[in-house]
């Protein structure tokens, strides 16, 4: 048995097996998150949520996936077919690809890139492209409005997202996520959310805008443009877009947990589980995911001009200001900030 693992550890197989594992993780995460979203929404609103399929409703994701498989993939007659069908794929790429650089446990990372943060930023912008392709491809006024809103929002909220992550990179001195997590070991007082608290808020808000969830729900303005860029999709294409949205939500919370809450570092020394530290990583990511769900079922939606003002006039100045403070602190007290 041991030799098989060594054999698999060689380069060609190791990448294939880990990529299959990552894809498996992304799709399952999307399914579980749809189920948990409906359950959290129901519990907030005083009802039970899905509890008919399987014990207490746990097989509901399976039922959803099976339903979406059997649904017909319609595409509007005047739609630009290739762009219409390429859009969900373009949206799914960031959700699947970025898991490669996320450190789950000590030594358990698919590809330890030393420019992991740069990789994360460049791949998420493909998602913005996917939204525009979906909106333009479906040739309907609602989709067009949704796409233009999506373009404006996603691209202009990448700026505060990047700036908020720079603070952590300045502190850790490297762009690789493994080094960032390593730099946060020791108790939770070493984690970066304490020195970088405003950056955490900016990252969190820009993260919500990046995954297009309420209160930054405008590309898919449910009650105004009835589903925005997703309005003409059905069946598996729609399922792919929903899966990518939920996987991206899981991803943003995973990256947030890695950057600000010390990835798989235990909060106290004695709670260290060695190789099983991925439990801490999962717990932190799950808490952030729950907060996304919790916000979605409480707040109303912003308007496009307010969304832009909030992004450019409040988040960007805040992050730039705090970036200077961090950089100044690192220069002034090199010993303290490593």
């Amino acid at each position: 048995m041991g030799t098989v693992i060594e054999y698999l550890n060689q380069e060609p197989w190791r990448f294939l097996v880990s990529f299959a594992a990552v894809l498996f993780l992304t799709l399952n995460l999307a399914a579980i998150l749809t189920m948990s979203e409906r359950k959290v929404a129901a519990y907030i609103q005083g009802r039970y949520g899905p509890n008919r399929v399987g014990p207490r409703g746990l097989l509901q994701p399976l039922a959803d996936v099976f339903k979406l498989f059997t649904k017909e993939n319609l595409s509007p007659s005047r739609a630009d077919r290739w762009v219409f069908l390429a859009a969900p794929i373009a949206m799914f790429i960031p959700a699947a690809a970025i898991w490669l650089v996320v450190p789950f446990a000590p030594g358990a990372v698919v590809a330890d890139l030393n420019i992991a943060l740069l990789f994360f930023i460049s791949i998420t912008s493909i998602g913005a492209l996917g939204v525009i392709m979906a909106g333009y491809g479906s040739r309907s006024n609602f989709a067009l409005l949704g796409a233009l809103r999506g373009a404006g929002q996603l691209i202009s909220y990448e700026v505060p997202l990047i700036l908020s992550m720079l603070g952590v990179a300045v502190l850790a001195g490297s762009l690789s996520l493994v080094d960032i997590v390593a730099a946060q070991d020791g108790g939770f007082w070493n984690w970066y959310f304490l020195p970088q608290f405003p950056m955490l808020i900016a990252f969190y808000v820009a993260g919500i805008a990046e995954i297009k969830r309420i209160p930054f729900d405008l590309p898919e303005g449910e009650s105004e443009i009835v589903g925005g860029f997703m309005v003409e999709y059905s069946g598996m294409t729609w399922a792919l877009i929903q899966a990518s949205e939920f996987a991206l939500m899981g991803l943003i919370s995973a990256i947030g947990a890695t950057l600000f809450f010390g990835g798989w570092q235990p909060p106290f020394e004695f709670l260290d589980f060695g190789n099983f530290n991925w439990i801490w990583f999962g717990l932190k990511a799950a808490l952030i995911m729950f907060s996304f769900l919790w916000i979605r079922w409480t707040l109303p939606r912003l308007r496009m001009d307010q969304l832009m003002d909030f992004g450019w006039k409040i988040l960007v100045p805040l992050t730039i200001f705090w970036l200077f403070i961090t950089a100044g602190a690192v220069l002034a007290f090199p010993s303290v900030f490593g």
Partner: protein
Amino acid sequence: MPQLGQGVLKGMGITLKHLFEKKITRQYPEYKRELPERSRGLLTVDMDRCIACLQCMRICPDHCISIEQEKRDADGSGKAKPYAVGFVIDDSRCMYCSLCVEVCPVNCIYHTEEFEAQAYNRLELARQFGERPVDPTVDPKPAVKKKKKPAKNAPKTEDQRAATVQRAVTEKDEAT
């Protein structure tokens, strides 16, 4: 933003409180709520008390009650009194307004607590109460005319349509 987010946080606090509260939805098929005493469900007719006065047929706004009346000496008192041979209530048209229940002199038509009226064919929704099935597809509108006895059901014009209807009605009789 006018304030600094207290309103948003207060709202979040309320939804978090709701997260742990007891749920209020009832699981319908397993738990059926007992309906209050006056609730108006499907209509039913107590045929032996019905004196075929056709009041309910006249007052019904949607013309869903159709009665075939005959002179018959049912209780052996010598005199032939009107007797309801055919009585149909077309549930696909009834709006449960209970005007018929109020207008019936002998209170033989009343609401039950049954509310699940579903059928695969709109004709099955027409429930027959008398001996002879009455054709629900003909509008008993003449019943509303003043002082004139309601005309017999209008003769059928399109035979072909009536044939299909008759077949559907007889089919239902064999099924029950």
